[in-house]
């Protein structure tokens, strides 16, 4: 890459950013709301979502098929001591699992689904250690490892890593392959997890194949991790396959944003509360509808009003109700100009009216 190219590229990048900013501020900001779209019912939307087909199925299959001839190359690079990092648009889960089950049959393979929140790296490491143990045992090479397999669960992460990082025996290699879907997944984005993954990848008995989807994924690693521990060998393998499982926990943009939706959930929550609690909520709602421009209802005012109407007997009971509301995000607090804590309902006036109507029925 010529230096002038680099500069040009950087210049182009900043120019694009400012152009985009300008486009936003100069043009009249569109005030159209999501709720103006003629949204279908959420249930219907979810059904349609589940039934969606994807376009170009044949071409996608051909594309994924074309990567098959690279499998031997990938295995070779793994054996050379590199970690494989797959990137490009489209779900790569099926591709790398197929790669693992056809080309990596000589090694034990653990698949880790990084797109899930619930990953426990300790458990993963224990499983890998057990697999390695089995493998070494079948090769009868464990004279110098008197440890019992059962004890892996009680060992610390450091001990497990030093077991996995043990020396290779001269007659043959012994690997466990970790296939990591979405190493940039939400459950693995903290630096501690990435440090552990890097240390695992650096172990002499572990081969690592991982995929990333986020354009900013490399920001998770420092140079030490990239160059010496993961030792990535990048492969650009766009598949265009739909992110079926990867996207499973993402909220649908059109399903939760409409006010209809929030009114519905709010009324469900409110109806499960006691009538007194509902009435306290109504006091706040009435105040907000009467003073649409105010910051909210000061706490003391609310308390006096509720006492007058025999809704609460003490501040403690009122606080209990408010805690309940806050937990369900029915009510929020902010300070007004006098420094008082004010309560407000994060809904538009129309939605609030609808809600009040629904709970009075």
């Amino acid at each position, binding site marked *: *890459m010529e230096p002038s190219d680099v500069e040009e590229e950087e210049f*182009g*990048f900043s120019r*694009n*950013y400012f*152009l*985009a900013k300008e*486009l*936003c501020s100069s043009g009249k900001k569109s005030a159209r*709301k*999501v709720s103006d779209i*003629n949204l*279908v019912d959420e249930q219907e939307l979810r*059904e349609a*979502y589940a039934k*969606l087909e994807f376009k*170009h199925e*044949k071409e*996608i*299959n051909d594309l994924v*098929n074309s990567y*098959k*001839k690279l499998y031997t190359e990938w295995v070779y690079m793994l054996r050379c001591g590199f970690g494989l990092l797959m*990137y490009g*648009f489209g779900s790569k889960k*099926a591709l790398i699992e197929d790669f693992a089950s056809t080309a990596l049959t000589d090694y034990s393979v*653990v*698949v880790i*689904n990084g797109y*899930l929140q*619930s990953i426990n790296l300790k458990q993963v490491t224990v*499983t890998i250690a057990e697999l390695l143990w*089995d*493998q070494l045992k*079948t090769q009868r090479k464990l004279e110098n490892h008197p440890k019992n397999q059962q004890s892996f669960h009680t060992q*610390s992460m*450091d001990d497990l890593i030093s077991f996995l990082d043990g020396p290779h025996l001269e007659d043959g290699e012994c690997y466990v392959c970790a296939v990591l879907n979405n190493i940039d997944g939400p459950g693995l984005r903290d630096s501690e997890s990435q440090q552990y993954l890097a240390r695992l990848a650096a172990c002499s008995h572990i081969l690592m194949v991982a995929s990333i*989807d986020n*354009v*900013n*994924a*490399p920001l998770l690693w420092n*140079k030490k991790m990239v*160059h*010496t521990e993961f030792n*990535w060998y*990048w492969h*650009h393998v766009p598949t265009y396959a739909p*992110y*079926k*499982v990867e996207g*499973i*926990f*993402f909220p649908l*943009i*059109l399903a*939760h*944003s409409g006010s209809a939706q929030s009114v519905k*959930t709010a009324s469900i929550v409110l109806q499960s509360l006691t009538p007194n609690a509902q009435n306290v909520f109504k006091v706040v709602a009435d105040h907000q509808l009467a003073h649409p421009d105010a910051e909210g209802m000061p706490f003391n005012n609310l308390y006096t009003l509720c006492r007058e109407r025999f809704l609460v007997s003490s501040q403690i009971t009122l606080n209990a109700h408010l805690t309940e509301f806050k937990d369900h*995000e029915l009510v929020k607090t902010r300070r007004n100009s006098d420094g008082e804590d004010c309560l407000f309902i994060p809904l538009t006036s129309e939605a609030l009216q609808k809600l009040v109507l629904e709970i009075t029925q």
Partner: protein
Amino acid sequence: MAPAADPTSSPPIPTANGDLQPFFVLHKAASRKPAAKTRRRIDLSPPKNSDGSASAEGCNDNNTRFETFRFLWSNTESIIKDVLKNLNANVFDEIDKWVYASFDLIRACRTLELTSATCNYPILNNALIGAVGASSQIFTALLSTKNIEFVDDISTFAELGAHLRSTGCFVANLTSLDFCAKNGVGGSLKSLLRQFLMVGIDAPEMSILASWYTERETNDKPLVVIIDDVERCSGSVLNDFIVMLREWVVKIPIILILGVATTADVLRNILCSSACLYLSVCEFNLGTPAERMDAIIEAVLLKSCQSFNIGKHASNFLRNYFLKHDGTLTLFVKALKGFDGDNSLLKEPVIKRALELPSLQRYCQTRGNCIDWTYALSELKRLHQLWSSIVMCLYEVGRYRKIALLDLYCEMLNSGAPDLNLVAKDHMTSVNNHHSHGCTQDKGYVVWAFQILRDLPTMELHKLLDRWEMLTRGIAEIHEKVKELQSLTTLEENHSRRDLREESKKPTSRTYRNDRTNKITINEKVVSFLQSVFREYIHPIENIPLHEIIFFDNVDYLQTALIGDPRRRIQADLLESRKLLKCSCCSKSPGVLIPSMHDTSIMYTLAQEHGDLINVHEWFHSFKAIVSGVHSQAKKRSRMSPSPKKRKDSNIPQSRSDASIQAEFCRAVTELQITGLLRMPSKRRPDYVQRVAFGV
């Protein structure tokens, strides 16, 4: 009102068994083929080459290739290791001496305080500090790495640890990770104990270390703690650690070695003043990264002819990347590993491929395809050796102006073109403007080197020729001439020395002039020698037989494999989906969005027309207009995405339900969110999504 985030309410998307488990075992090594295929597989036709013989052959090839790689890389790796070791040898020896000197001081103090040192609790209460005096300080070496990229120094510190262990110290190598605020000083003590005692301890205590040390039969070894990147440690934790060590310093003779990337002042910045006073600091320096780089290039690319080399494009790329982006030696070494791993020679049967190489055609004998292999290979070796040694000779000249070998190497690969104008150019400059220092940019390094040679004093010239003599040993073509020149200068030097002595007796201006002309002729001789060998042996690498194999020059491959560029590539995937998918339907109308395109691709292309905020409502309608092929609705919003909607020639039926279009929209937004190109609407801006990336 809060979005229902719990997975139980998620839509019923059919998933395979393992998809929702955090992890599972796909198969075990022992069962070579997975018996039951419970997992979803890609629906693929079996590979064409499925007959046994072919795959067995492929497997065999791969093993040979791997063995070759192993051989080459272990070779290169050991060369690099040796080079770095030699570079650091002096510093390591100095540190070693210092460690033992400090240890002796501590021991002297220990015997003084033996009575109190044997009890099993911290002995340095305030009353004793005065008595113990100097020994209440921890001996600390600051090892300045002069390199902000600490990744290059990891191996250096590991080597230092090994070196000290070999001379009989107990060594613990700690990193900044052991000094993070989260785990506190307990975490650092834990890893310290782990390294010294070789067991994990749940409740770390200094007394455990003390009793371990006193229990040893021969407790006459120093304990060295190496922390490789002090700048990255949490200041408070390091502070506590030092205070703690200092309480025990007489009982446990701990010596600290701290790696510092910036300056010695750093300790004052991260430690509090009292902790600074506990340290008795001594400074050491490592070589600069540039020195290391030069040494590695010299050893791997120029001196060893067994391995592969990098061609001009690859070397240029690496040089630019080293100087402008990464700056780490580690990447360079990784790249070398990449070359060893990915060489065309290793991929295909050698002979078959070699026959087709144009560079070998010259060595083909007249009868058929018979190649004089021995001749070609020895020629390869000879030419390469000559080339390398001349580059090294030029580098020796360049040392007077601090030229980096990497720059020189790149330039030699580039400029070794048949246009030997360089030499001609030099002639011009030498005639016109003898004393001007040529600028490297204009005329190239070589011309500049000739200039330096002309201006070199005789003494220096003599030294230079001595070094050349060393460099060219074993290369008959040059060595003789260098020796000749060497004797000439020796003669000249003696002569001039005698002259000088005589001159001091009878000062005349004539002898001075005479001496000057003599000097010029000698320098001129050296220059013309260099010019002649340059003309003769620095050929473009294309002239070397088999250069296609030994010079790795596949820059694109190298760049994508080593660096990757997800930010650009993923966006490009989205914007140019038809190129990659190669479908017949979309490729017909390039540059126009049509309903049959990939949804996310359509959406991202549409997003390009918005500013940094995208109004979801408008975005949805432009999307809907495209996928449903309807244009009446879209006309009003033609400002947003003008051209695509004019097309009505799609054959997609218009019966698409709102639900399915909305679902497609949702899916595309989710996919863009997964790629990180989009931020979802916030509470403050419920109707807008935010673009994250601008420009490919």
